[in-house]
């Protein structure tokens, strides 16, 4: 591409990239949370076969580079399974798995942090396992897990920048496109960097407010 200055179309490009980054982040965070909690519950309730298998997978996801996982899913899996997969699908799939692995770890340790005596009391009073989970475990585990969840969310937001490597036009990819065209790397990457920074701060602030709200009634809970 020729060396050109910025033009009126660039903010739109920026906004599109931002939308893609936020979209992939939100999708993988939500799906990852659901799956991560499922993994954690399989583990907590010691579901045979399922629990150990999921844990091995989640160990792999935690202990290998996300970029490699993205390549594996985008380039490797289509060859193996003879299917087509778009960059966006590969990105969401990979980041969902990766997020799920970390959510599982956070959820397991938050649930473990709950005093067992309460659970025995609840059982002895005849509450079903389901209502113990909903009414006793979940509200306490959520408060315990909040700081780790906020940290994870901020981190996963940064991790989304890797999906540009498989061709998803996210914020980082937009940065590359603008940089190639304008040859203004300092300006371009400052704008992109500040965008991520602001997003992260907004995310952390929202999480912090949620945590404060959850904690409001729990100041005395010793959690």
């Amino acid at each position, binding site marked *: 591409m020729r060396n050109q200055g910025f033009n009126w179309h660039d903010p739109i490009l920026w906004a599109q990239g931002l939308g893609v980054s936020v979209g992939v982040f939100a999708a993988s965070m939500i799906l990852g949370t659901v799956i991560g909690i499922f993994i954690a519950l399989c583990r907590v309730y010691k579901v045979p076969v399922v629990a150990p298998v999921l844990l091995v997978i989640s160990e792999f996801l935690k202990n290998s580079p996300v970029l490699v996982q993205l390549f594996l899913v985008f380039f490797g899996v289509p060859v193996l399974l003879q299917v087509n997969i778009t960059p966006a699908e590969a990105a969401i799939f990979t980041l969902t798995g990766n997020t799920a692995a970390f959510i599982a770890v956070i959820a397991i340790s938050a649930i473990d942090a709950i*005093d067992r*005596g*309460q659970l*025995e*009391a*609840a*059982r*002895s*009073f*005849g*509450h079903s396992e389901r*209502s113990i989970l909903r*009414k*006793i475990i979940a*509200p*306490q585990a959520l*408060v315990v897990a909040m700081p780790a969840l906020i940290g994870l969310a901020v981190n996963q937001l940064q991790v989304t920048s890797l999906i540009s490597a498989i061709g998803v036009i996210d914020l980082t990819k937009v940065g590359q496109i603008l940089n190639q065209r304008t040859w203004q790397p300092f300006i371009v990457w400052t704008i992109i960097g500040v965008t991520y920074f602001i997003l992260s701060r907004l995310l952390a602030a929202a999480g912090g407010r949620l945590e404060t709200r959850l904690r409001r*009634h*729990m*100041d*005395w*809970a*010793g*959690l």
Partner: protein
Amino acid sequence: MIEIDNLHKKFGDTEVLKGVSLSIAPGEVVSILGASGSGKSTLMRCMNGLAGLNGGSLLIDGLDVSKPRELREIRKRCATVFQHFNLYPHLSVLDNITLAPMDVLGRKKAEVEAEAYALLKQVGLADRADAYPGQLSGGQKQRIGICRALAMQPRYLLLDEVTSALDPEMTGEVLDVLAALARSGTTMIFVTHEIAFAREISSRIVFLDDGVVRADMPTDRFFAEDGGYGDERIARFLAKMRNK
């Protein structure tokens, strides 16, 4: 009616209950005494289904604890007060008390709350309904633990060393509540180290020794020179407790 017949309970290779037989009729206040490690808590945990049986049978009102469906019914009739309170820290005092009646018995909130306030008043904590467990002293927590159990309107109240985790100056307030309950005719199975108190409130004493029932007799008889006291191990236990 609680009917325990030849109950065995093992943890791994160690047998903790070695054939316990015992029956408790409605309206009785039975204290279970015994040295630490003799199996008292395990026996209580078998009664509310927190521990499974390895042999023998345990029936409550004819329902079998080892059958899940019947255990569910048993749990509506037996309520436990725990040594370490085991209150739910994220719920207010009121919600701690009303949770099980609403969730397990399916009763209406307004009704259960009214009863909860009445119970709180009985134990002298009417003004703490909105407090959280972490804001309360040990003695207050345990009185809430008792309210939580009573809110289930249980036929049988199981109490496992409910004053052991309390500072001495707080045991009195809890024992007073229990004494009132005993007088009111609630069936109580009361594991305790408060020998004098057990003697005062219970109609019968069961002495567990190393997983077997070594004595099961009316309270007067148990404390008589030629009754429980006549047993050398029991005499030694009582002497030890008195010197504490």
